[in-house]
């Protein structure tokens, strides 16, 4: 007698499970993650108008500041000037330089009395005569170097005017500013440097 197997006992053949392809989902997730990273970084960037910026010179001795002034006289700053020095690269056509000019005059006047800081200007990408007129109109009493060859700008790594460097009495560069400075900014920086023991 053959065994009759009841139909219900035979398990119905299950269709083979098609391996579900998650390719679309994986690719989608990857794209979303990359996009999210991109957006996160881009959204948190400050716009490119900050004042104080990095320079490879910070903390290092400043390059030699010497040359001919716009009046044709020789000028040289000692390696360790003994006072704070504000080196300001400018041009007569540069509108932000015109903004910060009066502040520099005020700063120079105040610190001339106390004797702890001086200003030196350097012409950047300008004619000597134009720069001379500009400084005279401003009432600048400090030396303005002509920098005919552009080497001074190169050694300081100046890209565009106005660029201002603050040099400590021992000759090291302590700050680099690329936006128009105010007298208050400079005083603050000097105070910060003095507090750091310079």
């Amino acid at each position, binding site marked *: 007698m053959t065994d009759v197997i009841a139909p219900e006992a035979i398990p119905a053949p299950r269709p083979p499970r098609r391996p579900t392809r998650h390719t*679309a989902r994986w690719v989608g997730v990857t794209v*979303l993650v990359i996009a999210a990273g991109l957006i996160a970084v*881009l*959204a948190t960037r400050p*716009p490119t108008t900050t004042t104080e910026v990095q320079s490879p010179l910070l903390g290092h001795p400043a390059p030699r500041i010497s040359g001919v002034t716009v009046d044709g006289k020789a000028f040289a700053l000692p390696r360790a000037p003994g006072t704070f020095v504000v080196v300001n690269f400018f041009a007569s056509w540069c509108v932000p330089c015109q903004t910060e000019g009066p502040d520099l005059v005020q700063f120079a006047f105040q610190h001339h009395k106390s004797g702890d800081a001086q200003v030196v200007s350097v012409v950047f990408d300008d004619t000597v*005569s134009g720069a001379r007129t500009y400084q005279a109109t401003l009432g600048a009493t400090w030396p303005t170097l002509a920098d005919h060859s552009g080497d001074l700008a190169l050694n300081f790594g100046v890209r565009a005017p106005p660029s201002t460097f603050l040099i400590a009495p021992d000759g090291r560069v302590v700050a680099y500013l690329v936006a128009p400075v105010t007298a208050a900014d400079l005083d603050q920086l000097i105070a910060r440097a003095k507090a750091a023991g310079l």
Partner: protein
Amino acid sequence: MNGTLGHTGVLLGFAAAVVGILVLIVGLVRGRPDQLRRGRLYAPVILLGGIVAVVAMQRALVTHDFSLTYVADNNSRSTPLLYSITGMWSALAGSILLWGITLGIYVTAMVWRFRARADDQLVAWATLVMYVVCAFFFGLMLGPADPFSHVSGAIPPDGLGPNVLLQDNPLVLFHPPMLYLGLVGFTLPFAFAVASLVTGRVDEDWQGETRRWTLFAWTFLTIGIVLGAWWSYQVLGWGGFWAWDPVENASLLPWLVGTAYLHSVMVQQRRGLLRVWNLSLVIATFSLTILGTFITRSGVFQSVHAFSTSVIGPLLLGFFGLVIVVGVGLIAWRGDRLRSPGGIDSLFSREGAFLANNLLFVLFAFVVLLGTVFPIFYEALNSGSQVAVGAPYFNRLVIPLGLGLLFLMAVAPALPWRKSSAAVMRGRLAVPACIGVAVVVGCVLGGITGIEPLLAFGLGAFAAASAGRALVLSVKGSWRSARTAGAPPARAALAGWRGLVGRANGGMVVHIGVVVLAVGLTAATAFGQRGTVVLAHGQTGTFAGHTVEFIGTRVVRTPSHISQQALLRVDGGAVFTPAISQFGIGTRPVGSPAVDSTITSDVYLTINSVPDRGGAWTFGVVVQPLVMWLWIGGTLIVVGSVLSAIPGKRRRPTDPVSAPVAGAAPPPVADLEPEVVPSTEVPDARLSVGAGEAP
């Protein structure tokens, strides 16, 4: 008054967009076709709002109404009329206004074109997406990028005037509008892509229906980019035309992905393949236009072109993120419907070539995007130190990709669909390949060295010959069909023009244009020479085989600027006048170059330095061969696009490459040589039967 009018216009546009969105949502969700029909009526209202705002802005600019901040910042009493008009898009807020009105034009045109299908869900969803984009941009103008804000305080007597670089050249009238017509135009295929995903109707040929719109947008984007390069060359004074500037890259990215899309769509129409690719490409194109807007306007990227910083950066990034999330999400959701019914039968076929094309273009776009954003990333990861990514990086990575694309351009037009064999290809590409190798040999014999230029010239000749072959076959096919249809010989000869229009033939003309442009680009960058000549009045100097004679100087005064010009005679022929101009007072003098352009080379003259007292002037001379080929190539590309939009002989998208044109007598069987053995003597009689027009 202008400000109020402008605000009204912007508000009208924004309100119309928002109401349109609501009406369409009601119609779609509740399934009410009458609402859908009503929803499309808001498109002209958006356009009207845009027009009112533009009229207000132009009126303010032309009448020098300095009560508006925008006019005070970008216009002055001495600005000529032309530059007052173009002042509308010279700065950030106005450029958003231009974007807004372009959107208004496109959405109205779209609604009008698809008016017969206004109650179709697909069209309604597409209109909805367009309304959302309109609402976003008009919304930007209501808040952060308000072009009609009033000056705070007293109304200034005179304005600052436009950026000096933007008042130098009348091209500023054309370049931004053309560029925006291109960039904004990609919103339409994106809207349809989203609509098709949402409604699940991914099989319909919405790509075919929107093909001309996409082509239109692509053409104008190409014009915009080429005009931008030309402007850069004519105005900026460094003698080059592409600096891999972030803003230039921002316009190149959508172009690259859009070109990939235009090609890849053909595979979907022909065989239903690459659906996910096409949807991804069109969504990516639109997202890249938004990212490009961000790059140009956010202030995060330093660029000579960038607009000033603004708070709209995060908003644009947010919109970009939204677009990406929606796009990726929709594709992932509808993934199962997007499965292709077939696969690529063989990589060595036109489908395979288009797939390779997609890969190359996407990789190209990836390189450009990575190079543009990497400095930002680097600074974020290493605070304090920076890295620059400039032309040397891009050139090194992009040139092999470009050469690969040239190779594809050569091979693909001759590749049949489905599957190909070496025998077929050998026969078809023999002549183009000979031409390519002959060009390389000729260049080497002519003393040209450098593997990149040689490869570029050789592959370019190969590609141009291949495209030429396709065109010749197509024209011959048209002749044959005209003769078979019984036309007299003269008429039949003229009927050959049909072989030049239509998608494939226009595409071949575009390819030839691309080759011409690539050859010009290679020659100009690889063989350019730069130098200076120091000349006193009356002296003649030589540089790189050209003589420059300093004839004299001239001072030109206009209300807006003073120009010191130098008159130079080049090669004893015409006189050219490079100049240094001063706009206003206390601004930086701007140099303008003068160019002696001939078909073989350009002599580019600038004034580098003027002596304080009488003495010798220093002139910069840049001699670059084949620069004019760039502009000729660009023109050919546009001509080819226009040809491509003209309907050719109507043919099913699924006809094979070499099929006879409809109406021609079927080829007699004896003509078809049953050449079993692969040999190069496969008689071209078989091939000359078919017109070259691909589906």
